[in-house]
Each structure stands twice: as structure tokens, then as C-alpha cells.
């Protein structure tokens, strides 16, 4: 949580990861986790750890969407009940 966010909560150094697997293929995410990218270092993760992280990101992707999409709502409204 120091660098990334889930549902907009966390640090701001890296992108929000809620729907990262919708935007990028799993192979790309694995490559980033293996080697690092730009200011993200290579954390020396094992294959198993990388697979666990990809599975975790896949799970988060199924729980909802951030940022919300669709037409703007009235100023006071949260839209329909999103509870899974």
C-alpha cells in the first residue's frame, strides 16, 4: 500500500491496481513483477510469489471497478447499490 492503490486507497507513487488485469495482459504484469519498471524496483520475488500476486490482482478485478464508469450522477447520488 506504500506505492499503489486499490479502490483509490493507498500510496500515489504507482498506478491504482484494482483493474490492472483488465487493462494489461497477465504476462505483462508478471514481467513487471519479475523485473520492476521505472521507479518500481525488482523485489526479487520468487515464481510462486509472482503467481500469488497475479491471482490476488485477478480476484480484486472481479470485485468491482475503479474509477467508476458511466454517465455522471447527480451531486448527491452514489448510483445503484454496488455491494457484491
Amino acid at each position, binding site marked *: *500500500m506504500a506505492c499503489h492503490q486499490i*479502490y483509490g486507497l493507498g500510496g*500515489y507513487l504507482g498506478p491504482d491496481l484494482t483493474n490492472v488485469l483488465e487493462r494489461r495482459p497477465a504476462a505483462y504484469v508478471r514481467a513487471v513483477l519479475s523485473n520492476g519498471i*521505472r521507479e518500481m524496483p525488482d523485489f526479487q520475488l520468487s515464481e510462486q510469489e509472482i503467481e500469488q500476486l497475479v491471482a490476488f490482482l485477478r480476484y480484486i478485478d472481479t470485485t468491482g471497478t475503479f474509477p467508476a464508469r458511466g454517465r*455522471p450522477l447527480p451531486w448527491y447520488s*452514489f448510483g445503484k*447499490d*454496488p455491494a457484491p
Partner: protein
Amino acid sequence: MSAGHPYTSQRLSYRFLFAAGVVLLLGISAGTLGAIQFGWAGEGFLGDVLPFYKLRPLHVTFVIAWLFVASMGGLFYALPEVSRRELYSVRLGKWQFWIMTWTGLGILATYGAGIFSGREYFNFWPPFALAILVAWALFCINVFKTIKGRLDRWPVYLWMWVTGLVVFVYTFLEGHLWLLPFFRDNIARDLTVQWKSYGSFIGSWNMLIYGLLFYLMQRLEGEGDQKLGYRRVDFFFYWLALANLMFGIGHHTYHVPQSLVIRYLGFGVSMTESIVLVKIIADWAALFRKKPWAIQGSQQIPFLFVLAATLWLVLNLILALLFSIPLINSLTHGTHVTVAHAMGSTIGINSLILWAVGFFILTENGEPLSPRIKRFIWWGFWMVNLCLLVFWIDLIALGLVRGVATIDGLSFYSIVEKTRIYMQIFAVSGIGLFLGMILLLSQWFPLILRRHREAMSAVG
């Protein structure tokens, strides 16, 4: 009898104020290094030795520690006077101090080794939480035993301190519920509980600090306003603050998939802060009319710190009210507008109040401050406030640009390039803030040591 202080046990507050200064120094050093890495991301400034993922938790943990440890120092000073007797146990206070010191050193060592919990606020190896709870329990025993049976009617600040003590325990436990699989295994539940607990956790330190502000104002007003802290209006705002502490933080989790009831409850209760806003503006105007800058003597410094803190309270309340509105929140959530609110509150409000309380304790009934010491404090005061203003406005601008760019569908790295200049202004004003706080601390530590020496020579 202690030098300048009617109760010997009030001296216990010195060691807590000193330790608070040390953890603040650690926290702001980590924050400034992190801000430089953030502003010039990718250029690796000390990144090999102190990477950002270690600096951020170090900054957050130790700055929060400053708020709590300085509050403890304030309470240990105030309680004997409020209850008109010595503290229940100085020895218990010293035990609390050493448990906290060793826990802090342990957390620092584990951060160095790369051991974290991965959480936003309680980002340390979970067993340390037990040590913190033990220290907190000792603190609670000392507070409750000191005030027990001493007052027919409690002033509002005593209610606020007691509420802060109890809510801390509740939110601290709630913030560790992720250790149970029931909470950890569902990301929406985990995030909702985690961020709800953080909102109330912030409320717990606010209760301690705003209580100290009430106490300080009663002391500064002297015999002139003995009703302060006992009026109906004071208790009305206490209950309103308590409601916000429990429900108003729903805006933290508007975007997490959760019940609409929680969102609307959070929204509705957050809007009640508009009543607080009106009250604070009136209080600030009343304080301004007293022309605290024209006050002679040791009261001038705490008065002016309170005046500035009240202004920051107005600005941050307006910001909080605006981003609690769902439409605005959808633009600002997950952006630096949130950081602006956090920095404005913890530095502009909480820290300025704690400096006001600290300088009050360190100057009351003591030797008058030399012009040189006063000059350093004023330079620090102005530097902190002016740099914080630039920092705060820049973070809001950065957040809004990022929010709009996200809605426009720009990629993360395009947004980073687009906002680079804002991040660099953030880093530069952050360095200015750091230097301002160093100026304040450069007088904070010697003043504590001086008061300690005065007290020891009075005893000897």
C-alpha cells in the same frame, strides 16, 4: 513543589515532549526524503539505501507517534492541575515511556530489515501492536486513577480525553481485524473495515488534541472565562465530533463496493461539519479581535499558534466538506487532494496545537524567553505556515489535474509527466516545511532541557 509548576509529577511531561520531538524529527526526515524521491521519481535519490517503500511507512508511523506522544506530554502536564493532585503514578508513566521507546526502536529496526504489515497506518510487524496496547493500558490507568473522584462536574476537555483513550483501543483493535481470515479473505470487507478504523483512529487523536486545545484556551484566558469547557455549546460540539468520529468517515470508502446505507450515512454525517465550520469561523474571528500578536509575555507564542491552527481548521473543514459530496469525491478520491487534507490537518491543525501546548508548558512560570529564542520560534512559525500553504494548494492542484486526467482516460505515466512540475513544487515546499520544523525543534529541545534543569535545581 516543582519549579514553576505546582505539582512535581508534571515534570513527567518533559520526557514525553522530548521523545515527541525526536520521533517528529525522524518522521519529517523520512517524509522529506520521500518527497524528493517523489518529485524527481526515477532518479533514485538515496533509493538504494532508503527506498520509497521503506520511507513512506517510516514517515507515517513516526509522524503519528509525534501526535500521540506529544499529546501524552500535554495530558501528563494538565491532569494534575485539572484534578488538583499529583499524578496517580510517575513510575507507571516511566514504564509506559520505556515500553514505547523500545517498541519504537523495534519498529525502526524491522523497517530497516524490510518487515512490514503492508497496512496504511499500522504498517509494522503485528506483535508490536501488543506492546503498544500494554503502554496504552498503563497510560489509561494513570489518567483514570488521577481523575477518579476529583471533580463534581467534568469539563468538556476531560470527556474528550477519556473518549480519545477509549476510542483508540477500539480502533486499534479494529485496525488489526485483518489478522482474522474472515476479514482478510474479502477485499471489500477488509478495505471497508480498515479505512473505517483509520477514520475513527484519526478521531481518537483529534479528541486528545482538541481537548488539549480547550484546556490551553481556558488557561490562556485565565480567570476571565471559567465557563469555557462547561457551556452547553461546548458539549453540543463534543457530541457532534463524536458522531463524526463514528460515522462521518464513510467518505473514505465511497468507492469500495459496499452498502449504500453506509455511504449515505457517511455523507449525511459529514455534512453536519458545516455547523462546526460556522462555529470555528466565529471562534477565529473572536480570537483575532483579541490581537494576540500584541500580547506581552510568554502567552503570546501559544496564542498565535492557536490563531494559525484555527485558520487551518477552517480551510481543512471547507476542503473536507467539499470532497464529502459524492460528485466531487468521484473526482478527488485517490488523488493528492486527500493528501492535502491529511497534511493540512496533521501539520496545520494538530501539530500547531501541540506546539502551542508544548511552548505553553515550557514557558509557563519560567524564565522569560530571550529575544534570540523568540526570533527562532517566529522564523519557524512563519516558515511552517507559509510553506504549508504552498504545499497544500499545490497538492490540491495536483490532485485535481490528476482526477480530471484519470476521467479523461490518460495512462498513469502520461499523468505523471503532466503533473511533474506540481510534484516538484510539492517536494521544494516540503523541504521548506522541514526546515521550518527544524527551526522550531531547535528551540523545543533546549527549552525542555532548561525547564528540566530548573525543576531539578528547585528539588535539589
